[in-house]
């Protein structure tokens, strides 16, 4: 896919020039190189240390399970390669090369796994089911932690009502029901947040507490603007890749995109709508962080405020997606100053965003853990046995050892490991699928 190769090449370039990186933790450190306080190699080393867990545990296991590219596998390494590269030509070359390695590697892996006696590819795909059910709940979890039990229970009743009742309104099919449930939960969360925000605003005087930020922010904005053309190109490519169904902008949208690819024409629309809804909700959680970090450091998030993803999912073809993607980046950037100002004046936005992200992680971790277990049961023929035993062992062992594998990744990673172990046992004559 030329789109993917181009995307990787350009993101590597963006990292090389210090314009934008994917990793939230690397972003504030990037200016240290330009300021002369840090060597490129050192920054690359730090970026590598921060990224390895994500690349392999999350990126690789998600990519193998769902057969869709994700930013952790594809773009965290281009961050590192771009920073490390001695000149911009190398940066582009290494980025492109990595994309090829990933794509061929993944298809090779998929082919290998397909050839194994104990099937893994299909069962792994079923992780999508529990995963997306959990994801659709995360706004409710956010309501719980931020607004308390009563509102959470009421919201839950509404959301369940909406989900189960939507067929009566003509919205049939799991994909639509899930999307509608997520949308309802999000609206409730936003509603509570707005109410509380207005109450807070009436109580406190609006004081600009940090006047010295303005000069730094202006500098940052100028710096960001210089990188805008490159970022618009990246946005265009990302949207196109999303439209083509080969790339997911986030973990939360993955199961929806996976199901969209497997589904028939009519259902695909519904799943894509679900992906867009979830992605939109997710980016609400990241917007304050992205905007604030961008203005404080002059380094942008690789995909702006990430609106390009839902736009990509919903676009009718890659060309439209690309154009809209570029325009979106431009529009986001134009708005970013206003956005940051609003954020300063309404602390409720950050609080809501924080609780959204917390809730999202908690929900995904659980959904993936359950999904992994069900996938393993499917692998061993439908009834819990040695496979599930191994899975539980791996999961519990990971917890007991202080989680060398992060909780977000342990579900799919353990499922893959169990699949391989089942095959190993099979070759040793110690395991066979039930007749």
């Amino acid at each position, binding site marked *: 896919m030329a789109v993917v190769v181009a995307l990787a090449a350009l993101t590597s370039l963006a990292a090389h020039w210090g314009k934008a990186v994917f990793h*939230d933790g690397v*972003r504030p450190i990037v200016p240290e190189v330009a300021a002369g306080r840090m060597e490129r190699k050192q920054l690359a080393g730090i970026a590598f240390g921060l990224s390895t867990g994500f690349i392999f545990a999350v990126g690789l296991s998600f990519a193998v399970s769902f057969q869709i590219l994700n930013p952790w596998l594809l773009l965290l390494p281009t961050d590192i390669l771009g920073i490390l590269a001695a000149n911009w030509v190398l940066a582009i070359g290494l980025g492109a090369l990595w994309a090829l390695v990933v794509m061929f590697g993944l298809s090779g892996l998929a082919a290998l796994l397909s050839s194994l006696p104990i099937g893994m590819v299909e069962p792994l795909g079923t992780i999508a089911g529990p995963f997306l059910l959990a994801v659709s709940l995360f706004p409710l979890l956010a309501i719980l932690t931020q607004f308390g039990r009563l509102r959470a229970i009421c919201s839950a009743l509404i959301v369940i009502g909406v989900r189960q009742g939507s067929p009566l309104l003509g919205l049939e099919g799991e994909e639509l029901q899930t999307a509608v449930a997520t949308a309802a939960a999000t609206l409730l969360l936003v509603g509570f947040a707005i109410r509380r925000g207005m109450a807070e605003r009436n109580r406190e005087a609006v004081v600009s507490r940090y006047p010295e930020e303005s000069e730094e922010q202006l500098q940052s904005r100028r710096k960001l603007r210089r990188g805008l053309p490159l970022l618009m190109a990246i946005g265009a490519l990302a949207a196109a890749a999303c439209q083509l169904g080969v790339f997911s902008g986030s973990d939360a949208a993955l199961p929806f995109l996976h199901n969209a690819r497997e589904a028939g024409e009519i259902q695909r629309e519904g799943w894509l709508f679900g992906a867009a809804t979830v992605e939109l909700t997710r980016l609400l959680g990241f917007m304050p962080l992205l905007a604030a970090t961008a203005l404080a450091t002059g380094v942008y998030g690789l995909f702006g405020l990430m609106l390009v993803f839902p736009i990509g999912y919903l676009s009718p073809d890659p060309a439209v997606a690309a154009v809209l993607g570029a325009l979106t980046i431009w529009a986001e950037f134009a708005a970013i100053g206003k956005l940051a100002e609003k954020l300063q004046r309404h602390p409720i936005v950050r609080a809501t965003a924080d609780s959204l992200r917390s809730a999202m992680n908690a929900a995904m971790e659980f959904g993936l853990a359950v999904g992994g277990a069900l996938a393993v049961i499917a692998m061993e023929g439908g009834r819990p046995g040695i496979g599930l035993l191994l899975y539980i062992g791996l999961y519990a062992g990971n917890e007991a050892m202080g989680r060398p594998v*992060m909780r977000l990744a342990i579900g799919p990673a353990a499922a893959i490991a169990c699949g391989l172990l089942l095959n190993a046992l099979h070759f040793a004559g110690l395991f066979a699928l039930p007749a």
Partner: protein
Amino acid sequence: MTRIVIAGLQKERIERCVREAGGDRVEVLVTSDMDAANRVKTGLADYYIGACNSGGGAALAMAIALLGYNRCATVKPDQQKIASLVGGGTVAFGIAEESIEFAVPLIVSAMLDSAR
């Protein structure tokens, strides 16, 4: 009185652990990461604790941006490392969300030790 600001994911959990570990010798504020980092920067608070998935990403992003890379550190539940970082001038600590209950008591006790 050691003043600690808390930000990032699972702030409420961190707050609980900090209060348990520090009792009435700590003053705790839970807020957004930008506000928290600014408070440490302007001297309204002494230390910053933040959590995210890995401890290195969103946990410290704003702290690094506003306080500088040298005053921030991602830590695991490692008593000695944390104590030496506090002694060396680190004011912002990032932890992985999963190690909150293990790391926070160590961080708080190191902070209290250095305040004496």
